[in-house]
């Protein structure tokens, strides 16, 4: 997988964060998110501390703040949902700007917003500093079943191909004057989806035959073993360990 397969969220760079072995990064991000989720929501300052931690990681990874913030827009749909919570939750009410809002609902909305945003931010940083292939190697290194990793790698390798095929079908439809405007046109779109399935499945069969003819016997050869030194592990785990300290402080103070 060359440069053509870099995903849209990846940002090429040579920072210390880019250079870390992928499985250490995956572990760090996962532990960090677990710590964030188990922090009490009343410890507002703790979330500020987490945000600062992530910002320092982004600085170390030389990910420009604007790039990073733009990627956070993915969580907009559930922000809208969170904003709805104060209106529907029950419990004691409070007056904010002339609206009667539930106190529980406000806390709930804050909880979802803060933890969700931090989680998305951490994932975006991971995706921005880790190449696809590295990510798969890292998952394999973390003892994910090899078959699952293979499926994921095939999905990623051929995801663009299948999506392109769909785009070509759309262009073909549009060049024949078709425009889907409502429920009446679902039949045409569904036929496209069916054709897409057949093409994907047949491509899978061809890929399998090609692999068999090159000696595939159920497992992929591991060519480059990723290994992490103790220093790299320490460097990667600084983030979740600091977060854990903040979390424990939050539990004791609140």
């Amino acid at each position: 997988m060359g440069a053509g397969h870099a995903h849209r969220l990846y940002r090429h760079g040579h920072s210390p964060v880019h250079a870390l072995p992928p499985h250490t990064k995956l572990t760090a991000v996962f532990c960090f998110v677990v710590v964030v989720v188990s922090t009490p929501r009343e410890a507002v300052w703790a979330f500020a501390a987490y945000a600062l931690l992530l910002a320092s990681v982004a600085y170390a990874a030389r990910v420009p703040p604007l790039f990073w913030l733009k990627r956070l827009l993915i969580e907009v749909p559930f922000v809208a949902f969170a904003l709805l919570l104060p209106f529907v939750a029950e419990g004691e009410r409070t007056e904010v700007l002339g609206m009667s809002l539930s106190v529980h609902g406000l806390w709930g909305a804050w909880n979802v917003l803060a933890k969700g945003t931090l989680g998305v931010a951490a994932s975006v940083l991971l995706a921005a500093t880790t190449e696809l292939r590295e990510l798969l190697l890292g998952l394999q290194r973390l003892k994910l079943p090899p078959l699952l990793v293979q499926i994921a790698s095939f999905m990623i390798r051929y995801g663009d191909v299948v999506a392109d095929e769909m785009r070509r079908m759309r262009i073909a439809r549009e060049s024949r004057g078709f425009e889907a405007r409502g429920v009446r046109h679902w039949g045409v779109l569904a036929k496209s989806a069916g054709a897409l399935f057949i093409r994907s499945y047949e491509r899978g069969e061809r890929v399998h035959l090609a692999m068999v003819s090159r000696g595939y016997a159920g497992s992929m050869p591991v060519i480059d073993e990723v290994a992490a030194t103790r220093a790299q592990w320490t460097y990667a785990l600084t983030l979740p360990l600091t977060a854990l300290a903040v979390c424990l402080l939050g539990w004791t103070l609140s």
Partner: protein
Amino acid sequence: MHVPDGFINAPVSVAAGAVAVGAVAVSLRGARRELDERTAPLAGLVAAFIFAVQMLNFPVAAGTSGHLLGGALAAILVGPYTAVLCVSVVLLMQGLLFADGGLTALGVNITVMACVTTVVAYAIFRGLAKVLPRGRRSVTAAAFTAALVSVPAAAAAFTLLYAVGGTTDVPLGKVATAMIGVHVLIGIGEAAITALTVGAVIAVRPDLVHGARGLTAPLKLRVGGELVDAPATPAPAPAPAAAGSHRKLWAAGLVTSLILAGFVSFYASTNPDGLEKVAHDKGFDKGEKEHDAADSPLADYGVKDISNTRLSGGLAGVIGVGVTVVAGSAVFWAVRRRRDGDGTESGPASTATDDVTAATATSATSTTSATSATSVTKPAENA
């Protein structure tokens, strides 16, 4: 519909994660049964298809549009186990690459969207397919109902998780009403698209639809304007022989070789090897070194110290066959034990043979269909 971080509390997330891990482990085994060693590329491509088809927008009205969730569609098209795997992989990649759905909520997402959706959809689909008359329309109808129920079922499962481990105390009734209400609407769209898509695939490649196996009608020939059943196709690749037949084959082979070696060998030519004869005639075996084993008890196909040539030759043959059989069996047994020790991986040799037989079978059918293209009609599924 992806659940973000912090929506479900930590203990319930961990429990859902355990459920998800169990479900994926079961599916990994099941998918091997559905797809054998083609699992990785085929499931990968199907996952890519689901990923792509989720980007296909279906306009509803007035500028709003929805998209397919794909759980029910995958279950019907490729079978429940592969479907769980594909949707799980899609969710995993969405969580890692696109930050869509929280990492700690991955267990919740997989449990709700991969497991509940596909299992409910497939159970309903199978049940309906059993009840309804066989035919294309029944499959489409079953697909519609399966997808229709699967989406609210997933919403109900989510509500259940929320009731146990929700972080906000929104009254449960409201959550349930909102979630299930909205998802009934989504389910109708999903059902329509799923049924249409399944129908489109069945129309072209019914053999690819896992849920429609056994639907293909037997091949008919038109002979003199009349439809008659095509003669039975040459038996497809023979089923792997059972252990019992192996033993039978082994015993028969052993007896035959013993007979041949012990009794028939006597009648064999005294110049059995053409090269030996030619060499002797031309005299170029003068420089030939005597074999190292020349003074072994069985040298030159006779047993030492037995003067009767008939008896000697026959006995040597029997002993030779015995030793060969024992050695061969030992090698075979060792190889098989090693291969079994490798676990589920099938050896390259067996794969290759399978493919060759499959290829021959395909080419055979294609030739028959080509030669009799004018006279063979494949009646449409009894709709």
